[in-house]
């Protein structure tokens, strides 16, 4: 097994009293697209900031391409390309100027820099935007310039924080196509944070982050399979009744209650749906049946909905 491109070992982080990350450990292999999925306030951005050297490591250890984030931040900075959730372009400069200045910050000059800028502008379909002032661009175009900017110095690892914020579905699709292209052609390792399930589906592997803890780790398929069979969600006629207990006793299944709804995971779920409705015809208002989604994984691991976890203090 090769050395991981990115490794996080026992990382914890506190903002004052609030524990933003708690003992998070995972590793990303070279050439992998790794997604950190979690609701807003789950700790994704905190971890992203630690990895991009803008927050100090309080506890634990994080390395990128073998460089320790705490001990040699400059080596890490040379290795990574970073795309922030919020824009980092200078709005008063043109697209070309933004890239040129960025190149200078990484010690690139002259013909090499020009060649690289031309290349990237071409690949990202920005060639005719070179002399546009950044603030006049649309959201999707700005995002593309951000990506070009973070790729300019040919980083081995690309970190993206919620990269599709403000992108329409078409632009989001293009972005992901480009990320997989980067991975397959240049072997770039990609770590991306997201709160969108459909985006998480496109990652090679995922970490689910909830309330600062890593609650699941694996490929999207593995995670879904771990839920087991099919997912059945029952809305009872009377929320809070003893229906969950009765279902548990009658069918000998694990039952979870989420916001008044009753969740059951089961192989051959369609049979259970039939039997369940037949057994409790008057207690069931509606039944939903489906293959597990990443949201189901999230609910199973945390016992609550993905969107319930809005932070109270930020």
């Amino acid at each position: 097994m090769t050395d991981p491109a990115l490794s996080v070992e026992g990382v914890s982080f506190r903002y004052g009293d609030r524990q933003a990350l708690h003992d998070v450990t995972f590793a990303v292999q070279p050439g992998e697209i790794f997604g950190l999925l979690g609701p807003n306030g789950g700790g994704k951005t905190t971890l992203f900031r630690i990895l991009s050297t803008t927050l100090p490591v309080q506890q634990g250890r994080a390395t990128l391409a073998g460089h320790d984030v705490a001990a040699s931040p400059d080596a890490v900075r040379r290795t990574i390309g970073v795309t922030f959730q919020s824009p980092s372009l200078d709005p008063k400069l043109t697209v070309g100027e933004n890239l040129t200045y960025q190149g200078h910050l990484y010690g690139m000059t002259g013909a090499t820099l020009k060649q690289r800028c031309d290349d990237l502008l071409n690949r990202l379909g920005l060639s005719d935007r070179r002399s546009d002032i950044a603030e006049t661009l649309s959201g999707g175009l700005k995002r593309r310039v951000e990506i070009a900017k973070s790729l300019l110095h040919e980083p081995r690892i690309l970190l993206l924080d919620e990269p599709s914020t403000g992108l329409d579905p078409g632009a989001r699709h293009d972005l992901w196509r480009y990320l997989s292209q980067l991975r397959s052609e240049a072997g770039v390792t990609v770590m991306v944070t997201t709160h969108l399930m459909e985006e998480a589906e496109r990652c090679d592997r995922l970490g689910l982050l909830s309330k600062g803890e890593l609650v699941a780790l694996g490929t999207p398929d593995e995670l879904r399979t771990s839920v087991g069979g099919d997912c059945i969600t029952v809305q009872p006629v009377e929320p809070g009744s003893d229906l969950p207990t009765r279902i548990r006793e009658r069918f000998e299944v694990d039952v979870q209650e989420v916001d008044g709804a009753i969740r059951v995971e089961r192989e051959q779920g369609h049979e259970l749906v039939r039997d369940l409705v037949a057994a409790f015809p008057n207690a069931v208002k509606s039944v939903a049946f489906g293959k597990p989604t990443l949201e189901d994984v999230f609910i199973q691991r945390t016992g609550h909905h993905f969107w319930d976890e809005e932070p109270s203090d930020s």
Partner: protein
Amino acid sequence: MPLAVWSLTKRELVRFVRQRSRAIGAFLQPVIFWVLFGTGLSGSFRMPGTEGGLSYAEFFLPGIAAMIVMFTSIFSAISVIQDRNEGFLQGVLVSPVSRTSIVLGKLCGGTLLAVLQGLLFLGLAAGLQFTGLVPKMDWNLSVTSFVGTVAFLMLMGFGLCGLGYIFAWRLDSIQGFHAIMSVLLFPMWLLSGAFFPAAGSGWLKWIIAANPLTYGVAGLRRVMASDAASVAELPSMGTCIAVSVVFALVCVVIDVRMTKKHRI
């Protein structure tokens, strides 16, 4: 490192040119001050120690040049807040550029703008005296005086940019900076011997003596003066240079430390 500093400096200049209102605000206000105060106070002003030879407009001239340098430098430093809010700063902070380069880029950009505006004003003032708007001035126009003027404007600009950066780095809104500007920085200029002479004004004298900007303004007066008697009361040239250099260095050291320590 020099490449990064130059690049960040150039960015400041480009941004300045693209935001014309900034240039106009920092330049035109002092010119208006100078013409209005210079004319309005010309009757009641007498420079201590001289026999009515120095008009107020002439006394006020280096003071206004200092004011322009101060406003421009400080406004350039405020752009740190803007860089942070617009997001540009986070991109710079995750790059391998040394933190010293980040500070120097900002400071050099601000200083260059400040000196250019200061010189532009002095050129304009030299022209204005022939229009009759302000009285004729007896002005030392030599190469030494010019070089000295540029040098002092730069020294002052650099120190003030450094000072502005200290505040700007800590604050997260331009509004907050304006508060500091009016209660701290503007009085600092008023009490630098730029607006009225330091001599014979009681306790104010001590504040003026403790103000680092006093030595920038005094140095500027010394290099611009044609009549040695009018600057006899001011701190010596050596003191002016020493205080200004030390002030600028202290500010830069604090700036770099803050930039290294603080993360966004």
